[in-house]
């Protein structure tokens, strides 16, 4: 174990590199979660469409993502795609993570959409709204709100999962820590440092999510 003063000293002297890496990690996470939300919403709607073929497609997607390790998905999308068209590394990583997160987010949305009281759809339909309009105006806003805590959780999982992008040489947090560690023959110190960065990011995100939840909860008070 490194001494505390050594840790502190290394922490300070490496901060510029780590802050850049943290920003990349955040960017990767935010982009992949946002795209993942679109994927998730799309596949959740397929799942509840009551059209068998679409349900199967949605099930297959969730099955594929859940049934294979993320690192395999990242490699397949990265090497698979870069063989076909030129796609910047950042987008290859972001899309792979989005594809992965999307399946979990689809399950989150499906659950919260189905958790909305059936009476809401009936009331909307009895007022002459179509199913699609009722979904958009009545069900989804409520389902989104309920999805927020699990989405926040998925965001945190996604943040940590983004470390796997190191293996397609993204200079995000984990990659920077292992590179610096082996260059300086000091792996443990840099691993501890990167753990602190992850902890701080997760703590900040947790706070933001709960703030956001409180704002959305206005109508429940």
């Amino acid at each position, binding site marked *: 174990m490194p001494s505390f003063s050594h840790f502190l000293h290394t922490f300070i002297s490496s901060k510029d590199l780590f802050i850049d890496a943290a920003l990349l990690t955040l960017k990767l996470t935010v982009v992949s979660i946002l795209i993942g939300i679109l994927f998730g919403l799309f596949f959740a709607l397929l799942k509840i469409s009551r059209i068998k073929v679409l349900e199967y497609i949605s099930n297959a997607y969730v099955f594929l993502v859940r049934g294979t390790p993320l690192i395999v998905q990242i490699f397949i999308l990265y090497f698979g795609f870069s063989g076909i068209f030129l796609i910047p590394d950042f987008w290859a990583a972001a899309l792979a993570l989005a594809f992965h997160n999307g399946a979990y987010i689809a399950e989150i949305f499906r659950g919260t959409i189905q958790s909305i*009281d059936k*009476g*809401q759809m*009936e*009331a*909307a*339909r*009895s*007022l*002459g*709204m*179509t199913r699609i*309009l009722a979904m958009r*105006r*009545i069900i989804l*806003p*409520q389902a989104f*709100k309920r999805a927020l805590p699990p989405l926040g959780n998925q965001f945190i999982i996604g943040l940590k999962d983004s470390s796997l992008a190191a293996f397609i040489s993204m200079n995000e947090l984990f990659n920077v820590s292992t590179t610096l560690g082996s260059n300086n023959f000091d792996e443990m110190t840099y691993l501890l440092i990167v753990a602190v960065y992850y902890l701080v990011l997760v703590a900040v995100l947790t706070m933001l999510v709960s703030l956001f939840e409180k704002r959305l909860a*206005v*109508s*429940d*008070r």
Partner: protein
Amino acid sequence: MNDREMIKIENLHKSYGSLHVLKDINMSVYESEVVCLVGASGSGKSTLLRCLNFLEKRQGGRISIRGEEISPETHNINSVRQTVGMVFQHFNLFPHKTVLENVIEAPTMVKKIPKDQAIAEAKELLQKVGLLDKANVYPSKLSGGQKQRVAIARSLAMKPDIMLFDEPTSALDPQLVGEVLATMKELADEGMTMVVVTHEMGFAREVADWIVFMDDGRIIERNRPNDFFDHPKEQRTQEFLQATMLK
């Protein structure tokens, strides 16, 4: 009374799987009439009401609204629903919208009425049900009785010709029942055609033009309120009334 036939049900059958819930229902409701549906739990009252609003698919029979037969294949159910309002036992207000937003939602989104006009009309309706001061409040802040009055205003905002009520006061604390019944009575006095499923026998006797008693998926007796309560024709009606009075 007017003799324009607003609702005509002929030979209606409804099953859930192998459970035969409505058995050959025949019934007409004329303009400005108030019909109260009564009967034991599970007798099919809600199901009948839901068939009238096409929330349930029927297995057989015909339903006509204002002389026009409605079949799911040939009609735009959504436009029919605009003329038939429905009020539910559990209110089903939209919790993410304020009282005013609840009321203007369907007029603006379905009928595409300009927002300021919809707001003006909504405020009139809220005034009518005595809740104008709650316009900008979320439903979670309202009492049950207030919620139900908002739900009535929300339905009326679509200017329906017919209003269906499914046990509108059953989920309310006893002291809140009166305000909702008063709103409904006012509506009846204005000439609204209404079908009301209720356990409030006092209301039924005072406001209804007809009482329809259902048992085990069939209409057993249709009678004028005073005759229904004082001289019921059918044995089963007498038993039902006795059981209800004992409660």
